[in-house]
């Protein structure tokens, strides 16, 4: 198939998870013999081939807000699409999240192509709908699902949520889970010094993610004193950018600043090394469409304690690949962390189970095959 994909972020630019999702998916599609073209943002126009994926980076213009900015970018994407479509007609156009909805719909309508739309999260979950700006983003998300021939969501729970929120017919919404590229974990060359993060006798409990309310860091910090009372030799390593100062001062107020280490934003190689060194990963999210962090941890054979919410319901199997805690519940989180810290063999057993689970169910090979299945349905090759 000749596939045109629109995403506002693409490696090396990495803000959320969409960029690496598109990169892993498109590389896998190329390795299966498909022709994949990526339209994305760049501060200057450029074209390049990344492992067989054709990437076109297009600039936008100065805009009063992100919505107008993405509208303008969409028009640039559309112009490039017209040019590429003249070389050889595309089979499908695939848009990711609301920022490329105007591009996806424009290309669909002008070039008469079937459109696929993947929702990675919703504005309602990210920040809530509280003014005309967030309402417009919510509207664009709905519009994308309305105009798309087929809709893909990344989590089972999230799929139901979106289906009801946007009234999407069951026949056109699909759930294709996200994946992890295990080879990146196995081939990772960077080795961090463990002693830079914790004392030799301390266990490392790792949090990875944006420091935002959605990720539930305050519940983790709230649970720390309870964990320390049973396991005084524990270090909480919190990796990610965002509201760093806010959470640092919160840790200071609780009186656990000496037992928490905020690393700030870390590049992927360093994160992988941290995942491998950690005794336990925690994902205390209050909202999580997919919860890739549990899978990344699994790739490093480290079990995860995560909230029973959204995608984490699936990416963690309770008492098998990790442990579930009640969402937004400090005591529950504290109990589950304590339980797992008591027994090192149990943790190792859960870590290896987690690794087996992702090797079986979360490979890009499977995801790419499911995705082309959806493409085929959009092209009306089959039902």
């Amino acid at each position, binding site marked *: 198939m000749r596939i045109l994909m629109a995403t506002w972020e693409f490696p090396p630019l990495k803000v959320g998870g969409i960029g690496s999702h598109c990169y892993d998916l498109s590389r896998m599609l190329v390795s299966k013999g498909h022709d994949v073209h990526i339209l994305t943002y760049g501060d200057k*126009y450029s*074209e390049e081939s990344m492992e067989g994926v054709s990437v076109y980076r297009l600039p936008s213009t100065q805009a009063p807000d992100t919505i107008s900015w993405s509208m*303008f970018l969409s028009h640039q994407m*559309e112009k490039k699409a017209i040019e590429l479509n003249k070389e050889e007609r595309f089979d499908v156009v695939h848009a990711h999240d609301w920022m490329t909805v105007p591009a996806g719909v*424009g290309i669909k309508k*002008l070039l008469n192509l079937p459109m696929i739309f993947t929702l990675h999260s919703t504005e309602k979950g990210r920040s809530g709908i509280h003014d005309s700006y967030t309402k417009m983003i919510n509207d664009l998300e709905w519009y994308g699902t309305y105009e798309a021939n087929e809709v893909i969501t990344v989590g089972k729970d999230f799929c139901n949520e979106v289906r009801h929120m946007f009234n999407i017919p069951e026949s056109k919404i699909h759930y294709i889970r996200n994946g992890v590229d295990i080879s990146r974990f196995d081939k990772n060359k960077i080795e961090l010094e463990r002693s830079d993060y914790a004392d030799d006798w301390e266990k490392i409990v790792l949090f990875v993610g944006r420091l935002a309310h959605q990720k539930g860091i305050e519940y983790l910090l709230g649970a720390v004193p309870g964990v320390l009372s049973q396991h005084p030799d524990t270090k909480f390593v919190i990796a990610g950018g965002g509201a760093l100062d806010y959470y640092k001062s919160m840790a200071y107020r609780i009186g656990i600043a000496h037992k928490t280490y905020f690393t700030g934003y870390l590049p992927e190689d360093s994160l992988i090394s941290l995942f491998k060194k950690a005794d336990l990963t925690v994902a205390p999210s209050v909202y999580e469409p997919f919860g890739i962090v549990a899978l990344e941890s699994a790739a490093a054979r480290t079990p995860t304690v995560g909230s029973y919410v959204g995608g984490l319901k699936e990416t963690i199997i309770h008492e098998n690949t990790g442990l579930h805690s009640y969402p937004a519940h400090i005591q529950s989180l504290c109990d589950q962390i304590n339980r797992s810290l008591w027994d090192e063999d149990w943790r190792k057993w859960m870590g290896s189970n987690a690794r087996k689970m992702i090797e079986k169910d979360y490979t890009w090979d499977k995801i790419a095959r499911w995705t082309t299945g959806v493409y085929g349905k959009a092209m009306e090759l089959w039902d």
Partner: protein
Amino acid sequence: MIKKVLLLSREIAENESVSEYVKSLAVFLAGKGIEVHIVCFSSSPEEAKLGEGIHVHKVPLIIHGDSLFNWSMLMNNELKRCSREIFEWKGFDIIHGNDWITSTSAISLAKFTEKPLIVTIHSTEKERGFGTKHSSIISDMEWWLTYEAGCVLSNNERTYQSLRQDLQLPEEKIKLINPLQKGWQAEVLEIYENISGTKVESREKVARPPSVENHLQSEITPSNEQVKR
């Protein structure tokens, strides 16, 4: 010979200057035996009858925008769809856009169909006061639209001067045709005929405002460094 013309307009309303311009032009062209397709937005299904040979295609938009700019960017997708269907079904020889509000459909359709693009700028954002938060991006859109057009029509001296100075259009690309003067439509038709007979080349002569300068330079010669990486 011009046989079929596509006119793009935000709307076809009563006593609205752009609508009256488009209607008057359509009636004249139809009188010369030219098939006219007007594609515009409308939220009501009411049919507009302008006479023999004039087809008014009103397209609805199912989403409301939070601003005129964002609304227009989405509305243009409907103009594109409808116009593409007309093109595949009957074809047309000329695309005529009106103001920035039809820019993305006008530009994309011209690229898609490879037909010449004529644009009438009824007023520029600078003339309208540049007073909203979207003024800068609208002005960018005006720049792109007039850059991609083979010929730009202005209705009066004031707009002509704004096109020259604010959008930096070269003199030979702009035609001043006053729609209040008798016989103006014949001049427009003459421009259609001239432009469809000659290859569109004038667009490259345009000077570039700073905001888009970098983009254009790199569009012509992509930086090698970027490609290697």
